[in-house]
């Protein structure tokens, strides 16, 4: 298989270029690039306007105020008002420019992720919990949108503001400007340093939150076991230890953050204090106008936020790069090859039906020295025949069934449907031919009818009725809204047996040519089982079917039985043939020790 990522908790390599990760976002950002550039431009202009305000203040103080000209003040006031209004409006324009387009970017990325994940092989999903995928589809994408909306713009805007601001300061009075400039370099370095350590601590905290979540989830999912064995104290201890560890990490985080904030607060204040003293002396000496000093201090104040913000903007950038890595980690997994890979051969008469030739399978993440689950399975199910598949727990029966609709890909060998290689069919067509009822029946949040009818395109009400009848799902009529009742995560929950019957109805609703049933009656009580079997016989008469069976009663649905043992088909024959001729089979079905089984079989023929 083509999957390269192997575990769900892969940490990205520590040293990776944040810029390179972020550049990968470009294809998604491209459609809104104009808006983004526009927003950044507007941001720079707004920010520069903010810097002009102190200059207007200076003009008022040194001009009309110094000249004791009250009427001249008016003009200054109007200028201030206009600047202030312009600044506010530009803030608005910037946000409005990007609001919808960035929401669009987020939605597009989410849609792409969803589309991609649906097409990844089942083997991928076996290894990735849906929670891990979900956090990529929600939190990580939101982080990226926020990055595009703020840090990306403000890194540019604030850098420009700082440069422009200091040019203004230096131009007015270079000595004072240098005093104010002094803490900038150490501040940026310190912020960078602390943010690095802080985001490390934040990652640790995040992992620890994940551990706490796991134990909460498990303690609820396993509540019957915990209660059944009276083990809540042990769980509580484990939980207590984990949350105490989380608390310690959080306190460490707070310490880092507190130190950082203190530095951010103190260093510029000290520089401003020094500039104030120097400025007062200069004003007293007449080297500096009072207005300049006022403007100076106002500008310095206005520059504090851009300087302080650099640290956390860079940290957010880093975090977004991690989010982007996580996103692309999944997006980079190759989809299963879509098209035909081998030329369709001319089907001969002996090829009709479902045929497996030398089929081998090993899990892509299995250790290299482990034997393959299936090693050379040969099996031929004739057209219209029903074959039962029997084997001990863990012998690979379910795995084998997954190979036919290519939920897993056989690592070697050939599977043909009426002579056509399954790899030569498009998945779309293949899965239209083959219908499956899974061991663990899954219902989706939809009505009962929709859940069943998803088994066949274009099937109607009558098909639904027939399928429900086959599965003996008469309980559906007793539901509040009949087959329109909502089930699944957001609807009524049904019992295991009820869900299993709906899954069975779903599998048979479209009259598929090939039908695969994975232990379809395990959760049914004996009465219902017998009724379903009777109805199912009619369906099976017209399809080619493979039925995984644990029980003799299920086996009796089949024309012949195949015994799967040690990765191979060990024997094929009718139930009676195998029961008498194959010790392993006899022991599997009757459960008696092999010798005991023979005696009994020989002793009491019926």
């Amino acid at each position, binding site marked *: 298989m083509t999957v390269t990522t192997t575990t769900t908790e892969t940490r990205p390599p520590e040293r990776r270029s944040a810029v390179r990760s972020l550049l990968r976002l470009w294809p998604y950002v491209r459609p809104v690039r104009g808006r983004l550039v526009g927003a950044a431009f507007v941001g720079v202009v707004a920010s520069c306007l903010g810097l002009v305000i102190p200059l207007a203040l200076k003009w008022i103080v040194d001009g009309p105020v110094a000249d004791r000209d009250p009427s001249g003040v008016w003009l200054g006031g109007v200028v201030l008002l206009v600047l202030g209004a312009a600044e506010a409006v530009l803030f608005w324009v910037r946000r409005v420019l990007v609001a919808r387009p960035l929401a669009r970017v987020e939605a597009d990325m989410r849609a792409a992720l969803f589309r991609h994940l649906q097409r990844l092989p089942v083997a991928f999903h076996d290894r990735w919990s849906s929670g891990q995928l979900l956090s990529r589809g929600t939190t990580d994408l939101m982080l990226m949108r926020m990055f595009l909306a703020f840090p990306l713009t403000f890194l540019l805007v604030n850098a420009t503001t700082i440069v422009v601001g200091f040019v203004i300061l230096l131009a007015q009075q270079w000595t004072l400007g240098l005093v104010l400039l002094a803490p900038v370099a150490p501040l940026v370095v310190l912020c960078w340093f602390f943010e690095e350590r802080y985001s490390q601590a934040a990652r640790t905290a995040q992992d620890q939150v994940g551990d706490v979540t796991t134990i909460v989830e498990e303690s609820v999912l396993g509540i019957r076991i915990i209660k059944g064995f009276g083990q809540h104290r042990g769980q509580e201890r484990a939980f207590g230890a984990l949350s105490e560890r989380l*608390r310690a990490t959080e306190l460490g985080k*707070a310490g880092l953050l507190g130190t950082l904030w203190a530095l951010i607060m103190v260093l510029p204040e000290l520089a401003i204090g020094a500039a104030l003293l120097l400025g007062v002396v200069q004003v007293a000496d007449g080297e500096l106008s009072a207005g300049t000093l006022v403007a100076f201090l106002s500008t310095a104040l206005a520059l504090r936020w851009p300087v302080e913000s650099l640290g956390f903007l860079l940290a957010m950038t880093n975090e977004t790069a991690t989010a982007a890595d996580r996103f692309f980690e999944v997006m980079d997994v190759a989809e299963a090859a879509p098209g035909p890979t081998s030329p369709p051969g001319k089907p001969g008469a002996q090829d009709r039906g479902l045929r497996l030739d030398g089929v081998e399978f090993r899990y892509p993440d299995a250790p290299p020295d482990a034997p393959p689950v299936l090693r050379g399975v040969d099996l031929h199910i004739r057209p219209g025949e029903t074959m039962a598949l029997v084997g001990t727990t863990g012998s690979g029966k379910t795995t084998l069934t997954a190979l036919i609709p290519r939920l897993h890909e056989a690592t070697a060998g050939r599977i043909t449907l009426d002579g056509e290689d399954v790899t030569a069919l498009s998945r779309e067509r293949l899965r239209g031919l083959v219908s499956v009822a899974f061991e663990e029946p899954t219902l989706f949040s939809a009505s009962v009818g929709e859940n069943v009818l998803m088994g066949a395109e274009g099937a109607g009400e009558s098909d639904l009725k027939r399928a429900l009848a086959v599965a003996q799902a008469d309980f559906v009529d007793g539901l509040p809204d009949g087959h329109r009742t909502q089930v699944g995560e957001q609807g009524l929950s049904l019992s295991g047996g009820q869900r299993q019957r709906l899954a069975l109805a779903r599998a048979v609703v479209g009259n598929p040519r090939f039908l695969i049933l994975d232990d379809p009656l395990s959760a049914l009580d004996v009465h219902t089982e017998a009724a379903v079997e009777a109805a199912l016989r009619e369906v099976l008469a017209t399809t080619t079917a493979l039925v995984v069976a644990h029980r003799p009663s299920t086996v009796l649905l089949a024309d012949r039985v195949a015994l799967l043992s040690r990765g191979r088909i060990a024997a094929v024959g009718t139930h009676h043939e195998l029961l008498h001729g194959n010790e392993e089979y006899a022991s599997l079905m009757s459960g008696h020790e092999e010798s005991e089984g023979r005696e009994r079989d020989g002793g009491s023929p019926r």
Partner: protein
Amino acid sequence: MTTDVSGRPAAGKKGKGAEPVGDPFDRDVLPTPKGASRALLRSLLTPARGRVRLAVVLLLLQQAAVQAGPLLVAYAIDHGVPAVRRHDYGPLVAVGTGYVICALAAGLLQLAFVRLAARIGQGALLDLRGRIFRHAQTLSVDFHERYTSGRIVSRATTDVESIRELLNDGLQELMGVLLSVVYVSAMLLYLDWGLGAAAMVSFCPLYLFVRSYQRRSRLVYGKRSTAIAAVIVKFSETMNGIRPVQAFRRERVNEADFRLLNERHLRANGAVMLEMARYVVSARLAANAALAAIVLWGAYRVASGGLALGVLAASVMYLRRLYDPIDRLGMFLNAYQSAAASLEKIAGLLAQRPSVPEPAGPRPLPERPSGRPGREVVFDGVRFAYRTGGEVLPRFDLTLAAGRTVAVVGSTGAGKSTLAKLLARFYDPTEGRVLLDGVPLRELSGAELRRAVVMVTQEAFLFSGTVADNIAIGRPGATREDIEGAAKAIGAHDFITALPDGYDTDVRKRGGRISAGQRQLVGFARALLADPAVIVLDEATSSLDVPGERAVQRAMRTVLRGRTAVVIAHRLSTVEIADRVLVMADGRVVEDGTPAELTAGDGRFAALHRAWRDSLV
């Protein structure tokens, strides 16, 4: 098959008793008693009362130090400059020293406050997480069957997280902003009451903007969280059910559905950002206009000699400080609102009382006579009905003799599982009592009960950890020999040793593919290790193949010999080892006898049994 890491096993067998429409569980709104969330918050902070007071003092001092800056600037310009001109550097030195002290004090106080606030906040969160966890553990099984695991998880994570955000950053900033408003107003009034009054008047429109934003944002945020919830449900449902999705070619239909939900979220998301933009522009406009007006008036008064220049400069600095955090105020208010909503949900969960409470004065079980490992179970006038009204078990009496194995068969919904749950005290009967060697279950302590009665269910859940850890749940502290012994007795030893790391294989890591049947074997090994007097098996062999089932039966005949056992099964093969069989239908025992008696008769059991025997030949 694979171990399902996130997937939830079937959410219990519910749906038997029809729930009334509009059940609070379905809408995820448990009734929260009035004032419960406030009381919860208070009880979380009470242990840290002293620290909270100290934190308030620190914040008051810190804000004072921060807000002293502009005042010193005013003093420097109005008094320092003339003094320096007179070559009197005294005032200047005083200002300089004051400035340095204030700056350092502000920084250090800030650090101290952040650390203290973190201690308070983390202490409260630790307490809160623990309470949720412990409470969820004490709540009865019937509660968990209705309140899905996802909801408890989101109480303990998302909701705690939003409270954390508020405690960590929000509250501190919010208090900072409010304090600075008070301080700044006071300073402005002190510097010049006219300017101060003008600044205070400017709060009125700002206050209105904040209020209106708060009102409107609640709406758009609500819409957005509903929209994202729908996206999340669709997303995880699809990924959890990827097999049927792919097998039934649902990809395109799903994509269309998802697009719809995604678009709805997009619009809601855009609306949130636009609402924020609206707020920012109106608040900024008001603030900048107020600033311009106040500066204009101040400058006019300085020009006409009515006001010192330094006072004007300080006022301008104060005003900027006053208006700066306005943008952020909107965000804090949102954090506050979502934390309040979370607190209410948590309070609702904590207000649920367990329906199976621990006894106040527990009674011990009588000593067992030597050589008698089982105990007698008596159902005395027991009736059971769901609280919503559906009667499951009509009143009945039943005695299960010590040391005997009783099989219970019958179709789905006949009440077999309820019987088992009453015996394991997952439920309490609506009427009557269940006695264990004459002691009512209600009067046994949890620990005593669990030592005596162990229930193994169909859903064999594995906890993270190794296979050995999972078996050891049956008896913490068991040696490796004990664990392997139990596994061997049940027939699980072979498959466990075939795993990549044998007994030390982590069940959640790769290579740990453990099938449903194998999980059930682990569950049995657990029960075997626990060595109870009474063992209840509820469909516990449903995923086993016949040899697996036989191995379990063998183990019960040898290892659990003499224990009282109640076996519920769909499969008749299980019944063969029973001393007595109960056939249930519609909550009543309709046939009762030894397997031989029932097989020989002409009841339901005999018919079923014949059909089963036929299939074996």
